[in-house]
């Protein structure tokens, strides 16, 4: 990355008298490969490098990007962004919440550098997973495996004096399996993600997890029974707790949605000014505290400064069951009279930074998972999920169990085939009467933005117990 060109772009825009300008350069060394049934389909390797400018002028925002690294091109995109900012012709002018300029460098260490691992070794680790699956005693009808590695360098400059350089290596993997038994098929996938080096693979235990999944799917086919629909207790394992935290807490707490900026794509929020839910309103039991925290080292959603140069910190979204703090970038914070809490993220130099989650999870309680189950007369333990979704105001959601068991008199019984909870956000979180102390995280890719920007995140939390919910 030629930092001179980035500095030049900001200086040139300032010379035009703009209210605000920032330039963000990003260089990504990318590797991706995919295996189908253990056979390598293709290996992709590329370097993507470019920069963007974002300008506020006459209260409008203009954004332009390029991958041509010349000062001439920098001038051209500044002129374009300025033209577009002025053309917005807004009645209420856009302003950014106040921030001080920051000069810093930050990054993530790799214990085992990705660059030092040969492509053969990278591929072979995933072939091993396929081999172990094919010899685990379960009939695997198909597998699809992909791995992506991104070494991302960024250089951020704005007209308020910020100058931030960073380097973040990330590795992600996705494994999808189809199990076939007795003429029936079941499917599952696992996503893995880590900020750091190749050491990630030691922690992931991919073979172990996928063999477990294969056996679970077999058991669902051969031993799984349907649940008799009705009101009962439910224990959600960390994976289910995590997706619920992400979908029905993280998303509705994004201030840009609350303000309507995503209304035609990802939608709005059940939380809005003048509505039944706002900061201070009860949304769950007092055992429910959900945070979003970008600062968890080596997490998939890790960052130290966001893409507007604001220092990252933990955000308490729902606190003791009350709506507490929205996720903000500088634009949404100014509109709601507060400060940014560093939630502005972009996937690349050619995408605007928008309000995003990082690692969203329920804070732990003091009980063991066994204690949660022990106190249930009749219910379901939903350890993991398959299908899920939520409406665009983030109110009506549904989670379908992948690994689930019947609970009777405090004991786990037979597997239950695809139990479903379909309920509302306040009903879900208000039903929580116990929270365990075991916290686990899962990697995920959060979708939002137009054009789509899938950002790496963690979802997670402890096991939680819900009393008297309807399961079918």
């Amino acid at each position, binding site marked *: 990355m030629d930092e001179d060109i980035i500095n030049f772009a900001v200086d040139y825009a300032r010379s035009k008298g703009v209210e605000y300008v920032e330039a963000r350069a990003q260089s990504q060394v990318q590797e991706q490969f995919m295996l189908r049934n253990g056979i390598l389909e293709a290996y992709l390797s590329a370097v993507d490098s470019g920069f963007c400018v974002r300008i506020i002028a006459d209260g*409008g*925002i203009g954004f332009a990007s390029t991958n041509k690294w010349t000062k001439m091109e920098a001038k051209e995109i500044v002129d374009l962004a300025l033209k*577009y*900012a002025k053309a917005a*012709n807004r009645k209420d002018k856009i302003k950014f919440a106040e921030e001080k300029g920051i000069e810093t460098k930050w990054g993530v260490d790799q214990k085992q550098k990705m660059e030092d691992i040969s492509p053969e070794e990278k591929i072979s680790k995933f072939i091993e997973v396929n081999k172990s699956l094919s010899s685990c005693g379960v009939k695997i009808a198909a597998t699809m495996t992909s791995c992506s590695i991104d070494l991302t360098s960024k250089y951020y400059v704005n007209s308020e004096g910020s100058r931030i350089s960073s380097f973040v290596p990330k590795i992600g993997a996705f494994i999808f399996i189809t199990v076939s038994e007795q003429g029936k098929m079941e499917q599952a996938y696992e996503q893995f993600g880590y900020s750091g080096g190749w050491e990630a693979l030691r922690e992931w235990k991919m073979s172990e997890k996928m063999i477990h999944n294969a056996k679970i799917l077999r058991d669902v086919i051969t031993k799984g029974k349907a649940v008799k629909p009705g009101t009962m207790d439910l224990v959600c394992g960390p994976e289910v707790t995590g997706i619920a935290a992400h979908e029905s807490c993280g998303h509705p707490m994004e201030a840009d949605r609350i303000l309507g900026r995503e209304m035609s794509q990802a939608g709005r929020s059940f939380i809005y000014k003048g509505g039944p839910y706002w900061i201070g309103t009860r949304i769950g039991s007092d055992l429910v505290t959900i945070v979003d925290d970008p600062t968890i080292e080596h997490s998939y959603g890790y960052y130290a400064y966001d893409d507007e140069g604001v220092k990252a910190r933990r955000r308490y979204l729902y606190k003791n069951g009350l709506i507490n703090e929205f996720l903000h970038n500088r634009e949404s914070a100014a509109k709601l009279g507060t400060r940014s809490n560093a939630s502005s993220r972009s996937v690349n130099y050619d995408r605007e930074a928008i309000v995003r989650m990082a690692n969203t999870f329920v804070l732990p309680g003091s009980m063991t998972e066994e204690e949660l189950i022990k106190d249930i007369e009749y219910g379901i333990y939903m350890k993991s999920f398959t299908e899920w979704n939520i409406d665009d105001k983030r109110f009506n959601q*549904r989670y379908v169990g992948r690994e689930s068991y019947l609970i009777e008199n405090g004991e786990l019984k037979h597997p239950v085939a695809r139990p479903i909870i379909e309920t509302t956000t306040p009903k879900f979180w208000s039903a929580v009467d116990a929270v365990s102390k075991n916290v686990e995280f899962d990697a995920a890719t959060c979708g939002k933005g137009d054009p789509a920007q899938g950002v790496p995140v963690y979802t997670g939390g402890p096991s939680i117990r819900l009393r008297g919910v309807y399961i079918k």
Partner: protein
Amino acid sequence: MSDALGKTEEIVKKAKALGADEVIAKTTLGKYRQIRFSNNQIDTTVAWNDYVTDVALAWKKRLVATQIRNFQKVDANIKKLFELAKVSMENPMFGGFAKGSFKYAKSKADEKLRDLQNPADYVFEAIEAAKKEVGSEIDSGGILFTKFEDVYLVSSEGPVGFDKRSAIELSIRVFSEREASGHGVECSSTLNNFDPAKAGERAGEIAKLAKNPKIGEEGVYDVIFNPLICGSLLAVWGSMASAFSVMVQMSIFVNKLGQKVAPENVTLKDSAPSYSLANCVFDDEGVPTRETLFIDHGVLKTYLHNTSTAKMFKTETTGNAGLVFPHPWNIEMDPGDMSREEIFKEVKKGLYLTNTWYTRFQNRAKGDFSTIPRDGIFLIENGKITQSLKDLRISDNALSLLGNIAYISKERQHVHWWGEAEPPSLAPYILIKNVHITKSK
């Protein structure tokens, strides 16, 4: 020969000189513009220029690929890619790239979309059209997107082509009340056939009808899908017709070639026609795009192929190659012989749906899924809309829905929408019998 075509050919020659068996290079010089608006005002205007060459290289059945964006380092990039091929692993199923020289249709791209002047005017036109339908107190948001690409493709196996691809799309969601909204889209490859007011009118018409919604009831309904949500279903069926989806068991069409998967009145095609947002005259192997009838009067005729997957299935490519896998371009459902009004008259008690989102599967091979209708959801009684509804979910099966299509309208619309109606399609109104609807408890 243009400079870009010459540089693209140079990349192929260099890779061949290093020892590659087969090479394809595709250079795209793209200009993309997007206006995002909400609360009836423009939030931001985004411009991105992308200059990129996609290279796919095969050596001893090892397939590797890269994207070159720094043209100062082409030699180093190609050398690195070839070295990667050497240490990569063989894919015994790789069947090579398409061979031969082809004649391509002439692109009908609209040069006016290369540098569109005053694109914000189209946004305001759509908002004003919505206001005419609903009144001035609306809240609207959406995007205007334009694309212009010059595409150059050179393959060591013969194909050489140049294409221009243009598109303009306006998507608007209009709220008449906090929980009453409608969504409209207007999609075209040229400015001549683009009328942003139509998108505003469609969204406004639905938003007006959607006022005062009540929570709907669970049950099994006959459901009319308008073109936008029909486009979401076509996207599901179309993507499952890709041979790759079939090979990884992510399709309801596995082992169903030659079988009846839909009623007689259902015919689905894939193509990349000149009217479509996905217009292109050749695929990523340089094979001319063409019309592929994949469901003919209810019978599954073929999957969508590139050269490799076609060889696996002992057939010919359908011109659907992406850089690595085949994919649909633009799905068309053949029109029926009824008007929208006639279809409504067939419904004694049912639902009318206008958009959906968050489609997720439990099992793609089996087809069990759910999706959440949004914007206007309406109860139909005796052929007429009698109530606006909210908070419902389709919880059904992709194969069952396809099999239960009863009526198809004569009128069709070219639709595409963020995430759900992707790829674009030419979609009619359809009535599907016995759709399972659930809600929160």
